[in-house]
């Protein structure tokens, strides 16, 4: 993985000193609440319902075991013994004390981590495919490009006060596991007309109040121009984006109001003026960065069937919680953070320390965060998976539900967030209680349930096969259900099935949607595809046909 050089270290250490001074000035009364808010929000620090919330950046979701141990230690020392992994591959702490944040940042800096630009109207963490570098059909590893963009975006002097936040995702495989179509900018590694690698650039995607699927603004960009082109996109946005209305300030609204063609024209015009004088990337620089992501020292192994003859429980886990690896004899292993009864995405300090040890023992000392709020040991020898499973199982980290109904993406909700209308974590609990039959879950197949506690859509409900949105009805928690959303390469926005339902009826509503699917599906058809084929009508009719028994 990429290791800090002197410049990286210097910048992060100087940031700690800067934030320490800003915090000191605030606590001394030299900075007003409002002045400090603008400063702390550039550093991942929100003031939430119970306490400050600190979001720590995990660039493209990649962690070393040393970094994970540091995150565990911070959870224990400054929080209540756990952290929450997010849909943008970051980690959040919900209980740090404001005065302690500079010390937390200093501890992070020791392990080459920071909270820079994890909030505020600036370029946020660059996210990517959690199977980057190991998935069999990848065109190229996106992470070197993520790191190049990360450095360019860090403290970018021109783009640190944008109209609104700006999220970039980069992928290198045909499957989109980074939800890049609902990002402000999506960068896809593609082959150009001459067969050389470059990028397809999308812009204007996003969720929130106005969900929009991103559109292609450039079909092929030669790789040396990546940063100058991004600079052109950002400059058009910084200049033209709306600043009079926060809910209309994302780039998606600009793209829509100008129209795709006019937006493209402006970006291209700006880029023509920038491309030769702007930041460029030469081959030597690319080579150096690629070298930071060289594959680990894989052993020469043959593929095997480690699940053959093993217990049903292991076979289920192997089938659902592991993924193919491009190197023979290896497998990627998901660590499910979706155990029933636990808030989706949460991990305790001891779990994190255990996983750091397991990463050292089984996966070259690295661990990844997925955008679906699970963790991943990317490079495990197939023959070690049974042993690893036994350890994960004991630690409550082997719930065999990856990609199924109970692998729910969920925001922190009312329990922590001051914006939420709904206790999304509690709804996840109700769903888990209702759907506890794994045979049924497996029969349902691939199913993405995504839940957000409010319109800000941190839980990506718009792009869930089943989406659940918390709404406030005169002080009570109600839930609006959508179906047919998807976040991958075939991204689509879910359609509302009808009036929202009270919390207690969410599980029954989902059960009825699934009944229709089971009755109507064609062989091998996913829930999503049945919805696309049939439309909302039959699902809606079933859900609202009879009142839910109390």
């Amino acid at each position: 993985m990429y290791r800090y050089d002197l410049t990286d270290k210097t910048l992060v250490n100087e940031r700690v000193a800067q934030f320490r001074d800003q915090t000191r000035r605030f606590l001394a009364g030299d900075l007003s609440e409002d002045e400090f808010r603008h400063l702390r929000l550039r550093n991942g620090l929100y003031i939430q319902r119970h306490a400050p919330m600190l979001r720590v950046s995990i660039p493209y979701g990649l962690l070393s075991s040393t970094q994970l141990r540091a995150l565990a230690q911070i959870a224990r020392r400054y929080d209540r013994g756990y952290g929450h992994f997010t849909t943008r591959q970051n980690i959040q702490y919900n209980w740090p004390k404001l005065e302690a944040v500079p010390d937390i940042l200093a501890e992070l800096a020791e392990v080459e981590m920071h909270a820079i630009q994890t909030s505020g109207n600036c370029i946020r963490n660059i996210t990517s495919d959690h199977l980057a570098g190991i998935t069999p059909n990848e065109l190229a590893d996106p992470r070197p490009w993520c790191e190049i963009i990360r450095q360019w975006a860090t403290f970018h002097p021109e783009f640190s006060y944008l109209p609104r936040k700006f999220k970039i995702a980069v992928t290198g495989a045909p499957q989109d596991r980074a939800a890049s179509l609902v990002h402000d900018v999506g960068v896809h590694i593609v082959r150009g007309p001459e067969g050389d690698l470059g990028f397809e650039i999308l812009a204007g995607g996003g969720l929130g109040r106005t969900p929009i699927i991103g559109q292609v603004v450039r079909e092929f960009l030669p790789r040396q121009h990546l940063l100058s082109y991004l600079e052109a996109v950002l400059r058009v946005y910084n200049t033209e984006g709306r600043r009079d209305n926060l809910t209309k300030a994302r780039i998606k609204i600009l793209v829509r109001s100008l129209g795709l063609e006019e937006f493209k024209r402006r970006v291209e015009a700006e880029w023509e003026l920038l491309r030769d004088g702007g930041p460029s990337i030469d081959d030597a620089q690319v080579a150096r960065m690629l070298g930071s992501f060289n594959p680990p020292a894989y052993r020469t192994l043959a593929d095997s069937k480690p699940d053959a003859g093993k217990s049903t429980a292991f076979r289920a886990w192997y089938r659902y919680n592991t993924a193919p690896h491009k190197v023979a004899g290896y497998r990627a292993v998901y660590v499910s953070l979706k155990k029933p009864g636990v808030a989706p995405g949460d991990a305790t300090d001891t779990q994190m320390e255990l996983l750091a040890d397991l990463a050292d023992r089984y996966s070259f000392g690295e661990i990844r965060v997925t955008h679906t709020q699970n963790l991943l040991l990317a490079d495990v020898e197939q023959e070690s998976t049974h042993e690893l499973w036994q350890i994960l199982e004991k630690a409550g980290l082997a719930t065999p539900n990856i990609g199924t109904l109970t692998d729910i993406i969920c925001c922190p909700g009312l329990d922590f967030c001051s914006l939420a209308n709904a206790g999304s974590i509690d709804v996840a609990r109700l769903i888990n209680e209702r759907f506890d039959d794994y045979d049924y879950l497996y029969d349902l197949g691939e199913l993405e349930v995504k839940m957000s506690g409010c319109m800000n859509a941190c839980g990506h409900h718009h792009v869930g096969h089943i989406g659940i949105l918390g709404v406030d009805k005169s002080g009570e928690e109600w839930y609006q259900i959508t179906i047919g959303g998807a976040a991958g390469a075939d991204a689509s926005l879910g359609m509302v099935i009808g009036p929202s339902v009270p919390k207690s009826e969410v599980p029954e509503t989902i059960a009825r949607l699934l009944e229709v699917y089971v009755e109507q599906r064609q062989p091998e058809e996913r829930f999503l595809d049945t919805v696309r084929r049939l439309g909302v009508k039959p699902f809606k009719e079933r859900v609202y046909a009879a009142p839910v028994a109390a």
Partner: protein
Amino acid sequence: MPRRLLRDRQIVADEWRYASEAAGDALAPLIVTVDAWRAERDRWIARGSRLGLAIAPAHKVESIAQDLQFFELVAAEFPGPADGRGYTQGRLLRERFDYKGELRATGYVHRDQLFFLARCGFNSFELSDADIEDAHAALLTFSAAYQPSNDMGLSFKLRREMPASA
């Protein structure tokens, strides 16, 4: 008492006045708004004094570029902590239109923004008394940067093109 400024890393008394401020010496350097400039361009030129131009965030730098020869100062306004259009204006003036005069940040300008402003080409800052004494230190918050820039009057120990040389 004249306004104090941080200019080229020195705290100095401002010799400029805005056209909206009380009249003083008829030949004192004067900052006019874009509207005033466009309305009475010939009159301002005939005045024979040094001229500065005050631009608002919505002004396109391209639209004033052909007149830059008349100005020794451009003052970009930052109406609040959320409006970052001035950063783009600064870079365009310096990099695309080769503007060499004083580039001043006005309005909501605090020590915590100075580093970014300087890297976008600003070399003078209207700061509150509370901020001005510490402002020079704020310019030195970071001794390295990832982006190449042609900021004036600042030199970095480390500066690199993307990505880093190790």
